[in-house]
């Protein structure tokens, strides 16, 4: 008798788990490899391990997580669809690029003042990535909770990675206390949903017909769950930690969390909201509540960014604004569950909602490329552990390192949503879906806010190209010729941003059609 026959694992379960397990294994490799490296030297071997782990995980996700009906496994605890694959690729792109960007941290001429431990940095980045990948395939609230905590705990530790800086510890503490607080709400929401729906499985919850007397409990649970999720994506009024954590954390960590945590949390939010929306636990009032959160987030994010002079704080507020734009897509997705919608039960509404899911996926992909690019430039300009702290430090960058200035410009232009970049296509897709579901007011607000955002994005471009370098600033110090890894990261991010914006179908040559992945995922979800 085959001794393996009684194992609770099927081969399909291993296939579903492989893309999640690979980054964690490579995280262990990075931790051990760091012991063999010169503590003062370049960390390119670790960056290569990081990239290899992400590439293998990406390959596994593309090969194993296919299908518009969704791959079910592990007794239904996980379901993978095209959307999971697309979001996994965005997360892995961010981790790879940030790994390369920080490979030369603290090296080069001049005094070195850094306490960043790179073995732990890469290890935690890869462990967190593994949690993010689990979040985008979660089909069970247990999986969902463990995944979101795996990524959160890694990022709490990463935020405080630079132990020399008080502001790093302060940012970590703020993020940790508010994060743990919001986890409590998240878990209580899950408990109430479990009590009302009698299941923790998302697909079962979606199918369950809630007892009318239990509906208030389910709605309360959904609201508490949403509080926890909105915190993770940095939506107003749960955004207070974002600027401090982004400013306090080392640049590489900020880049990593601005990409990975946001992509994964939005992926998880789509899965959970689909289930609660279908079960009827999220009432029309709840959808309008999310509408209001989206509007306030767009306004507050853009208003906050206008006055920022620290590039990481600027990108923090820009990230809040982008959360708002993405919430437009989430609201549009939920409209198809709104029984009081004027176009309820019409095929057009469902089509627009599907469009919204695919749009949010594509938006996240473009956002990942552009944001990783911007942070890769900031990491490239770090000298001996000193980060770029003022936008004015970038003055004259176009003259001293034109490549970095161009990469930064591409990223910022994409974040602003100018045609020819991934950011434009993503916004177009999400906002079109918003118009399709009748949320024209919200879309108009988002468009106006995008126009305002041009000011603070282009201000940085003007400083880089038209101002004289300040003596002693990051831009004025001669470019470090040996920093090939961060150059690679900047180049790859800028290329990805342009390719995704101009010719997204070209990825077919690599065996993966991103546009198809997103629409398949939307088809499987709704």
């Amino acid at each position, binding site marked *: 008798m085959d001794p393996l026959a009684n194992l609770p694992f099927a081969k399909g379960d291993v296939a579903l788990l492989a893309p999640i397990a690979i980054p964690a294994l490579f995280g262990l490799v990075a931790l051990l490899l760091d012991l063999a490296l010169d503590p003062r030297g370049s960390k390119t071997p670790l960056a290569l391990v990081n990239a290899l782990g992400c590439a293998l995980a990406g390959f596994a996700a593309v090969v194993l997580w296919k299908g518009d009906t969704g791959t079910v496994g592990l007794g239904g605890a996980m379901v993978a669809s095209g959307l999971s694959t697309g979001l996994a690729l965005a997360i892995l792109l961010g981790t790879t690029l940030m790994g390369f960007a920080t490979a030369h941290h603290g090296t080069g001429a001049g005094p070195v003042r850094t306490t960043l431990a790179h073995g732990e940095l890469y290890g935690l980045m890869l462990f967190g990535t593994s949690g993010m990948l689990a979040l985008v395939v979660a089909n069970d609230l247990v999986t969902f909770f463990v995944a979101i905590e795996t990524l959160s705990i890694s990022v*709490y530790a990463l935020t405080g990675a630079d132990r020399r800086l008080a502001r790093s510890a302060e940012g970590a503490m703020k993020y940790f206390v508010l994060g743990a607080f919001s986890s409590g709400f998240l878990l209580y929401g899950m*408990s109430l949903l479990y009590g009302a729906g*009698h299941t923790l499985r998302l697909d079962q919850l979606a199918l369950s017909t809630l007892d009318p007397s239990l509906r208030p409990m389910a709605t309360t649970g959904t609201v508490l769950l949403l509080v926890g999720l909105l915190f993770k994506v940095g939506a107003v009024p749960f955004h207070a930690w974002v600027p401090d954590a982004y400013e306090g954390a080392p640049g590489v960590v900020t880049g990593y969390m601005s990409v990975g945590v946001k992509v994964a949390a939005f992926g998880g939010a789509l899965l959970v909201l689909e289930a609660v929306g279908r079960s009827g636990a999220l009432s029309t009032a709840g959808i309008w509540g999310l509408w209001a959160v989206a509007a306030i987030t767009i306004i507050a994010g853009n208003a906050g960014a206008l006055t920022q002079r620290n590039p990481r704080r600027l990108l923090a507020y820009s990230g809040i604004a982008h959360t708002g734009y993405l919430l437009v897509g989430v609201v549009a997705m939920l409209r198809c569950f709104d029984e009081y919608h004027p176009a309820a039960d019409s095929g057009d509404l469902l089509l627009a909602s599907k469009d919204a899911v695919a749009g949010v996926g594509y938006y996240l992909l473009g956002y990942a490329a552009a944001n990783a690019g911007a942070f890769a430039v900031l990491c490239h300009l770090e000298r001996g552990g000193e980060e770029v702290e003022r936008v004015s430090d970038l003055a004259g960058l176009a003259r001293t390192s034109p490549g970095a200035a161009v990469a930064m410009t591409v990223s910022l232009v994409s974040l602003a949503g100018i045609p020819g970049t991934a950011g434009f296509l993503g916004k177009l897709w999400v906002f079109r879906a918003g118009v399709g579901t009748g949320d024209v007011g919200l879309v108009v607000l988002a468009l106006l806010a995008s126009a305002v955002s041009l000011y603070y994005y282009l201000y940085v471009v003007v400083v880089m190209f038209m101002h004289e370098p300040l003596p002693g600033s990051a831009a004025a110090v001669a470019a470090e010729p040996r920093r090939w890894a961060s150059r690679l990261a900047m180049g790859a991010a800028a290329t990805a941003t342009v390719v995704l914006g101009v010719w997204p179908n070209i990825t077919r040559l690599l065996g993966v059609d991103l546009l198809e992945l997103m629409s398949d995922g939307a088809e499987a979800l709704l």
Partner: protein
Amino acid sequence: MNDIITTPQAVQIVAAALFAVGVYGVLARRNLMIILMSVELMLNGVNLSLVGFSREMAHLGPDATGALPADGGQVLVLMAMAVAAAEVAVGLSILIAIFRHIRTVDVDAPRATALRD
């Protein structure tokens, strides 16, 4: 007497009260150590609520997927306890990192950033 304290409603009320005490502690106390303890209180309130729901579902048979509804809550509680332990380990290390910089764990102390570097 025994019947009163084990009714499903009573369990949920105690759980909600524990959670609320935790929320109050996080919002009102200024010592980071107490805030950490309050977060744990919130999570334990939720654990109690999950176990209570699980107990209410003890009489339910297997659902469409063949799983017993009562099992889910128990499993989530075990996971939540493991996660809370991991979380508090990271939280305490961050607390020590803060203490090394500003020599206090009071969140109302002069802002850490004022003593930057």
